[in-house]
């Protein structure tokens, strides 16, 4: 076991996480797959070992939650409207994303996928 994990720190580093390919279709149209869109559009930071995941893992563990909650896909307490707000307004180390980074239609699908606590 790596020393960090032995001390109750973050889990060992995962290998490179391949993102899903960008789902085909018009980026401005509704109904493309939210999970794949999340992986492709947000995966540079929010898959295992990503910059956002690492910071959120520390934050969630400090709040007494398991390290797995550092992955947004594992969260049960996110609402779709909160996800949209953070993407468009940024939060702490996360910059705002433009509509070229994530279109409104893509964000609707991503927010529906991550927003397991509802609207």
């Amino acid at each position, binding site marked *: 076991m790596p020393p960090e994990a032995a001390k109750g720190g973050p889990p060992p580093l995962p290998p490179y996480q391949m993102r899903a390919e960008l789902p085909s279709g018009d980026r401005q149209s509704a109904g493309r797959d939210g999970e794949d869109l999340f992986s492709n559009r947000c995966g*540079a930071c929010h898959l295992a070992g990503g*910059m956002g995941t690492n910071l959120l893992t520390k934050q969630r563990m400090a709040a007494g939650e398991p390290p797995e909650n550092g992955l947004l896909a594992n969260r049960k307490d996110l609402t779709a409207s909160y996800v949209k707000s953070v993407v468009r307004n940024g939060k702490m180390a996360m910059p*705002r994303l*433009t*509509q*070229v980074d994530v279109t409104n239609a893509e964000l609707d699908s991503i927010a529906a996928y991550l927003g397991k606590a509802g609207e």
Partner: protein
Amino acid sequence: MKLTLPPRVSPAQFDAAIKACEGVVGKAWVMASDADRDAYSDIYAPGSEEEWPASAAVAPATVEEIQAVVRLANEHKTPLWPVSRGKNLGYGANAPRMPGSIVLDLGRMQKVHELNTELGYCVIEPGVSFFDLYEYIQREKAPLWMSVPGNAWGSVLGNALDHGMGYTPYGQHAKNLCGMEVVLPDGDLMRTGMGAMEGNHSWHLFPLSFGPDWTQMFTQSNMGVVTKAGLWLQPAPESTLVLTWDIPNEEDIGWVVDTITPLKYGGLIDQNVFIPSWLGKIVLKGQRKDFWDKEGAIPEWRVQELLKEHKLGYWQVQVRFYGDEAVNKAKAEVVKKAFKKHLDVAPHEEWWRQGDPVNQFDPTMGVPSAVALQMGDWVGGRGAHMGFSPVVPATSKHVMGQLKRSRKIIADHDVDFYASFTVGGRFATNINMLMYDRDKPEQVKNMRKLFDALIVDTAEAGYGEYRTHLGWMDPVNATYNFNNGAQRRLNEKVKDAIDPNGILSPGKQGVWPSAYRDMAGKREG
């Protein structure tokens, strides 16, 4: 963010320009709301984001759309600020230099036109990110490696065009560019290098042309919009071996550089050798308050305690060898012997061979990661950083001189010292990361004063920055002062000749077209 119009453009003229752009790219790809303007502001701005405001953004998807938008910009006198993906964090992100410019966001242009495994290059568009290209190469199972910068969230071409650096044998990214396609400020289309000949087979292989070649004119430049380019890639090595030393003392950087430089420019070491100071390791272990709970710079006695507590040297040196296993081993022996003259500690050695898992956080293996941005969390709040980046000759005399001078100025401003040197051959780039909390106005004010002081001092000592934030492009340009700024004057002449309306990136790198020269040097504070 409220609308800031381009200089001397009325609201009605602006609306007409926006409507015309919608006719080219579609309404959804013209972004001109207050929220859109926020999204095209500098997320790490040292001060108000409204200091460098965009009026809108337009996102074309094809070369023809770019040409049409550029022609409209000339017609309506609405200047454009092209960005590839707009992730130039620490240098201005996707915000424009001149207030009211319309951001030309090329992020939709994500095609990989060619991946050539026989001769090791790709032809890509500006919206292709390091993650996109890496995964494309993996999916194609192509035996090629990329070179990546510390923050790999951005565009491959954007980084190379802005003179970004990486840590592999292909680490000087602008040198990997070979053959570009460019939309000129009047909307015309040209190709650099051998691409000047229709159908030429060597476009992305031969780095020159017949007669003067204009490729480098379009890097760090406002002379054209690069729509695609060839980029050389490294053949995937059979194996790599990395040697890691923790170097105990600050002044040891002198012998480290004198040891590495001749091996690097002599060809024994292929990669750009990155030498970060201790803070580069600590920032990944927690927040500043976990290690020092006072506002001012961490004092030297506490630095020494932290180095002991975390078993760190003041510097860390990693030298990686790429290729044939026997050759790597032989090269490593030469470098180990050279280091042993100064440090009687064996390095940590780690082999990687084809088929082994790849460490996802190691930029010396060409794997993209955004983890370096975690440093934004170091100071807490809306953490941000600016990079002060002079170039120095890669010898102990110059490296130590720069280190001592910048360290004193940074200490005088009571700011933590986080320097790195990257030996790229005969030169080293010295990146000083200046981290601050954007929500603390006194920190921001201090950081700006510090940055001004560093530029003046460094230039007086005979060194220049190779890259800088929007707000300091004019002051840094002014330090390139041979013969009353002959380089600036030539750039302005060329700019005015090919862009008489001054519609492409006015003020980029301190080069102002005559149409907007009255805006030069304008900065709040």
